[in-house]
């Protein structure tokens, strides 16, 4: 048959690019100038975090009291030292590792919980009432208070900070997912999947979840900023990282007594937190625009 030969001819032609939805999203993302700055900052943080031992010039926790409270641009300590003579740059670099780790950990845990609850409550009407009331209950607490409460119960440690912040992320995530599930569940292709005998589990995970990925990605990115900021806040309050851990919030907390004599002790970690939070927020914002299906149609 001629149709068959033609089809063979076409399959030999250059292969189609795979996953071009991701590529086109990335292209739109890069068009946003501010997002590039954000992406750059995130890239630097990841670089510093992953290769912290290479970038650090000193041991971040080793004290050297003879070199205490040196200002920035001192020889050997280009960002100066803190009140115990620890190198600020090295502490900053290791701090990047901690904040990234806590941020990712909290967001992943939060997403796991939020997506599960959101899918279940959106898909099964019976569970909806119960799950959403529990979520409402979590919403009733101010976020940071909830985190403090959880840490008060579990004890102060970075691991518990991750748990606390992830629990705090669950309600928002669950609501976002539930909303998407509710609208996607009504689509005819879900009914069509059911008519083909797909199990509930398969429909939820394979067919509904990919369709609500866009808001989840945006949420996750924005949540990174919140998680990093909250880790710093909790550490500042003494509930997170304990000294001598080079955590940014803890660094500010330690530096506040020397605010007038060595302001760089709080300004430097402060700027680091600000930059990273700004970066994640900006990228999240840009992602939201880039993932908007309305904008997909324009191109």
């Amino acid at each position, binding site marked *: 048959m001629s*149709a068959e030969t*033609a*089809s*063979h001819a*076409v*399959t030999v032609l250059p292969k*189609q690019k795979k996953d071009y939805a991701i590529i086109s999203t990335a292209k739109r993302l890069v068009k946003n100038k501010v997002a590039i700055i954000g992406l750059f900052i995130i890239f630097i943080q990841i670089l510093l975090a992953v290769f912290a031992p290479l970038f650090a010039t000193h041991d971040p926790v080793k004290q050297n009291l003879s070199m205490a409270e040196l200002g920035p641009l001192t020889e050997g300590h280009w960002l100066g030292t803190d009140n115990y003579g620890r190198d600020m740059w090295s502490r900053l670099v290791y701090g990047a590792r901690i904040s990234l780790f806590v941020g990712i950990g909290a967001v992943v845990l939060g997403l796991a919980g939020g997506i599960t609850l959101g899918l279940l409550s959106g898909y099964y*009407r019976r569970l909806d009432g119960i799950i959403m009331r529990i979520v409402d209950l979590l919403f009733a607490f101010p976020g940071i208070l909830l985190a403090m409460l959880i840490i008060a119960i579990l004890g102060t440690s970075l691991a518990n900070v991750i748990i606390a912040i992830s629990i705090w992320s669950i309600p928002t995530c669950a609501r976002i997912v539930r909303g998407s599930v509710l609208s996607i569940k009504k*689509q*005819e*292709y879900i*009914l*069509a*999947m*059911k*008519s*083909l*005998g*797909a*199990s509930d589990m*398969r429909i939820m995970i394979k*067919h509904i979840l*990919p*369709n609500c990925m866009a808001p989840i990605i945006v949420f996750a990115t924005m949540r990174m900023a919140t998680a990093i900021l909250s880790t710093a806040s909790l550490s500042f309050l003494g509930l997170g990282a304990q000294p001598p851990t080079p955590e940014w919030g803890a660094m500010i907390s330690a530096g506040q007594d020397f605010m007038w004599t060595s302001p760089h002790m709080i300004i430097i970690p402060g700027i680091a937190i600000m930059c990273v939070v700004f970066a994640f927020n900006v990228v999240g914002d840009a992602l939201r625009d880039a993932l908007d299906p309305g904008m997909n149609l324009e191109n």
Partner: protein
Amino acid sequence: MAQSILDIENLVTKFKTANGEVSAVRGISFSLKKGETLCIVGESGCGKSITALSIMGLLAGNARSEGSINFNGKNLLNVKHEEMRKIRGNEISMIFQEPMTALNPTFTVGFQLCEPLMIHNKLSKKAAFQKGIELLKQVGIPLPEKRMKQYPHELSGGMRQRVMIAIALACNPSLLIADEPTTALDVTIQAQILDLLNDLKDEFQTSLIMITHDMGVVAEVADRVIVMYAGEIIEEGTAEAIFNTPQHPYTKGLLSSVPNVDDPYFKLNPIPGTLPNLNEQISGCRFHPRCPHAMEKCIQHSPYRTKRTENHAVRCWLQEVEESEYRNYQPTSAV
């Protein structure tokens, strides 16, 4: 051929709503033979789609079905959830009205076509892909290898409906339910799809339930026709019987609502009024408020099923009107 694969008896489907319980399907019974095409006709909202969804067991959570749906000896209303899941797609499958929305936009055509094969037939990925290409060829899609890797939005409406048909036929079901499969398509594509369904039905030895409100479609494919009105079957018979000697005023009305292009003096005779609301209480025959021949009796008593011939039954009091009067009676569709 005489063996029936689907026997529906006294099927009632009710929905719980804020205004109490509402019946969408009110005690319908019919049976379907192997390899037969049955068309269910009626206005929007008369319970056609609900009947189909009742058979599939895919009604919304607030719905409840009574009666019995016997499919190959099993009452589908009593079958467990898990077992029903295995029947769906495998033994009974469904084609939906909107090819634009019935495919998942996030997956390739190939993925969606292979999925039922992998779920039900436990085929490997590779084997399922090969079978998928085979199926696309069968439904007349050119360049199937290329289409397998494309996303639904890259295909036209007709193409997508073909894909839907391919997916529905993937596991070689013995019953195929098509819910207005051509409504969203161009007329030219419509004819192609109907031809395709007819051919595939013969090839796969599938029984077909076609739900439609388009009498043209009915004429094209039907062996037997069921006319539904407000949740009830009001007339059923072979396609010839329904088209040549329609009995119920509603059926006549439906037939005279089809424009006739050949006759320049043809005037459309729409049925006056609209379908009653589901929770409206109507005494007697549910069609009487719109019926041009409504009698005293129609308002008081619901008509019973009258068999005119072996293959033709009607629910209408007009059947009782004496034969002499009956001859004098002028059908509305006559011009």
